């Protein structure tokens, strides 16, 4: 694994940061002075969600996102470790498709959280 990877923040004037791939992005970006929201710091509360537009992260420890949010590109920075160079949109500005009114826009069975989702082809 590379010692550092490059993180680009599109909504922070495309600023770039070199970070370790072994530690969560919330920690490594904050250490370099990026002002980011957070709450629980264990992957359960969604406050730190950001949108990944390029690259891959390992966020297996997160329990906040449902499958629709994951498909929309959201990642939980307090537990996500970059698996290579990544491009992100961060902060509440990136939350345009994070929240939805459940009475207006219900989730399909496969869009629920991973632990209760039904795989798409088995859904009906």
């Amino acid at each position: 694994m590379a010692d550092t990877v490059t993180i680009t923040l599109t909504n922070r004037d495309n600023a770039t940061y070199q970070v370790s791939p072994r530690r969560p992005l919330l920690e490594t970006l904050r250490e370099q002075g990026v002002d980011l929201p957070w709450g629980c710091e264990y992957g359960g509360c969604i406050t730190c969600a950001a949108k990944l537009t390029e690259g891959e992260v390992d966020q297996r420890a997160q329990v906040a996102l449902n499958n629709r949010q994951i498909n929309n590109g959201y990642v939980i920075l307090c537990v996500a470790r970059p698996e290579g160079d990544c491009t992100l949109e961060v902060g509440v500005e990136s939350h345009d498709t994070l929240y939805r009114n459940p009475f207006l826009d219900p989730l399909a069975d496969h869009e629920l959280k991973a632990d209760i989702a039904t795989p798409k082809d088995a859904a009906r």
Partner: protein
Amino acid sequence: MTDCCGPGYASPAEAMKAPAEKLLYTIAIYTGTGIQKPDYLCTIDADPESETYSKVISRLEMPGIGDELHHMGWNACSSCFDDSSMARKYLIVPGVRSTNLHIVDCAADPRNPTLFKVISGKEIKSKTNLSAPHTVHCLGSEIIISMLGDANGNAPGGYLHLNKDFEIVGRWENSMGDIKFGYDFWYQPRHNVMVSSEWAAPNTFMPGFDLEEVGHLKYGREIHFWDFEKKEPKQTMYLGEDGLIPLEVRFHHNPDSSHGFVGAALSANIIHWWKDDAGEWQWEKIIDVENEPHPEWPIPVPGVISVILLSMDDRFLYFCNWLHGDIRQYDISDPHNPVLTGQVWMGGLLGRAPEVNGVQVTGGPQMIQLSLDGKRLYVTTSLFSTWDNQFYPEIRTNGGCMLMVNCDTEKGGMEIDPDFVVDFGKEPNGPSRCHETRYPGGDCTSDIWV
């Protein structure tokens, strides 16, 4: 209040004669708003004779960001009335996301509360394996706090026990039995009972509300009757579809009464319980708010009863339908047969009262606090940052607001006061959202008599 005694009042009837509140303490949050500032405790001038009436007169910022201040409670209440060594002096202000407990000194200068101590979330998690603090009740000179999750945000959590010097004693309960979730609780010592309700695991409710998870049993539908002295659950009432997401729990203030109520938020029902002549606990649904169709949405909108409270004389029950936008007053002199006596509208999704007192109301009526004499009901509009963002996304730019409702305690009836409004959209650091309110002298949800 007499000189001989501790905090609070000898009885609910004495509490009703206390002087009117002149200050309000209200939580305001930036968590989830996009403004990178700490949540804070506002002091609001509630003295109609004062020049700064209906204005925020001081703001106490918490040390860090992202706490999500939510509910809070006093270090002492009327349960310590006989203990002259105790005083109602400190507010315990938990951060539900961070698990930090902020102990705020409101006595040294009531108009400018100061931070006395912080018990860090890290310490609480490592010593007790608990997180997500919610309801704070004092219990004689001790303090118990319902904690909705374990250190990793899984249900059912438990109860944190603090001593009067705000040191962690450990877990309060001896057993959680088969309880699946935690939320609110209230106790009635003369019946040796505590009743607790159920929201969901922090990992379920914190990221927002997925309606579909209710059907997957990720949200509560039971209430629990505890043996209060043994500190363990004794009996569970399965409320089923009538009791989806039972939240705020209120016993009668009268310490001899066994009657109590819980608002089932998603079913939009009020559930009443009592002990029958044979000494058995019984429950029934006494109020059912119908879901309302929305012209553009496939699923009808439930009221979402996010809060209930009882007047100090136990005559009136108040509750809010946060999504519909109304506050209701019921005469519950006969608790089996409530009578609707008042209703007002502010905000909500049904568009019945988008603007009140010149302020655009974003959100719906949510937390309420009633004056001890039962005449003034203060209302705020934000529920929980992520849920606000789902249902009322404009709250990010508009902020929350606080209004006051005048309540007729003789004939019943409610009216929004035209002269009181605090617009949290105009806060100096940008729009914030207001939540629970308390008064320096105690209020209708803080005091329990032993």
